[in-house]
């Protein structure tokens, strides 16, 4: 009698744990849109070309993959360019996720997070990227494109500040 009770209990626990894991696996897509920071550094959304419909209302999109010569020739893609073409991420005035879902331009982190999941997780926790504001109050985050050019996301080298003086070079004005 006792043994039977235990086996039932174990079976129950097993079913319970299975249903839990199944539930959590289902919701990953939505999780990416939840728990994101709310206050952002004043935007640097590209203005010259946006909204796309400014021109593409009159000029239909040529969907064929090719070297861009007539328009957008200034955009050089250095971001897994061999596997990627403009329309993988752009669609009309929206950004396009790999599953075809369209998202707003001011939420690029959803798109970036599809590949850079660990970085996205760190960013939500405030570890990736710069946060300003108050350490004990409102924190101001930057969205991906505030710092990274999405077409060439790797940071360019910058000039460093001057090196410190060597002890022999330090002038001492004793008075």
């Amino acid at each position: 009698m006792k043994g039977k009770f235990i086996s039932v209990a174990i079976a129950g626990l097993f079913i319970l744990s299975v249903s839990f894991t199944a539930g959590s696996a289902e919701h990953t897509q939505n999780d990416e849109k939840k728990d994101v920071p709310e206050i952002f550094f004043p935007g640097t959304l590209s203005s010259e070309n946006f909204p796309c419909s400014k021109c593409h209302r009159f000029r239909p999109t040529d969907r064929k993959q090719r070297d861009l010569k007539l328009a957008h020739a200034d955009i050089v893609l250095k971001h897994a360019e061999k596997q990627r073409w403009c329309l993988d991420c752009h669609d009309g005035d929206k950004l396009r996720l790999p599953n075809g879902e369209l998202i707003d331009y001011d939420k690029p982190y959803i798109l970036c997070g599809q590949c850079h999941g660990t970085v996205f997780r760190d960013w939500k926790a405030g570890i990736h990227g710069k946060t300003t504001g108050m350490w004990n109050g409102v924190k101001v985050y930057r969205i991906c494109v505030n710092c990274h050019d999405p077409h060439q996301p790797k940071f360019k080298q910058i000039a460093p500040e001057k090196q410190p003086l060597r002890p022999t070079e330090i002038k001492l004005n004793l008075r």
Partner: protein
Amino acid sequence: MSKKIRNNPLGINLNRRTLLKGAAAGIAASALPFDKADAVDWDAFLQKHFTELTDEEIRNVIERLEKEASVEWKKEIHIGATKALPGVKFGYGLDLSRCIGCRKCVAACVKENNQSRTPQVQWITVLRFKKGEKWIDLENSEKYYNPELVPEPDYFYLPVQCQQCENPPCVKACPTQATWKEPDGIVVIDYNWCIGCRYCMTACPYGARRFNWARPEIPVNELNPETHYLGNRPRYKGVVEKCTFCVQRTRSGRFPACVEACPVGARKFGNLLDPKSEIRYLIGNKRVFRLREDINTEPKFYYFFAYGR
């Protein structure tokens, strides 16, 4: 709890001020030149330890120091004395996988904290290491690197500043108790009590303390007038100074100047006692180390690698 920080081995309960006022009349008169010994000098000479001062005494001291400083530096200078916030212990995180060695933090720190331009004083030192070498060997690092552009492909960078130890050797070394650890974990210096013996500099295993060999020179227009008694108020010749996690900013909720200056967001700052803080997240989830953990100084400055490499 008594605010007294000194033990009296003879058990004589004589108030230090009373004792000094009596005995020091003779002793101090020989230390202070007779012709110059006005009330201000006496006040400075008899100033109690900062942690023993009452709020009103602090106000008086600061009023006197503000007056002195504005004459000395030809600019109105505000000296704050904000106390440590309850339930706060500051911690710092620095992402070594992101730091590019640009020294922007150094420049921001010099400006914010009124460090001497001539002779040069800088609280942050950025060390450069060749990738793949025995890099914890700090003595063989390069701090005078000067390439045209950073980061350089074969190197990585390690900024070092005061590690705000929980068990600070510098505090133990100080013969005048001019340096101590505040309740929020910041190790501070009272520039009016420091006698410039530099024992603390010898005791510090991180080389984080700096000495004012001469009167600091700061251009008046670059002088930051928002200061803190224990932090960035202009220093005197012959006193030691160091990073205070920007006590004048962080005690009112702002981030240190170096955190705000970092162009790659490698610097993180927060409250170690708050389980939801960024600093606690990175300690719990990232590869973390502290400099020279083996010597039991318990630094509150955590180097980490957010990126797997």
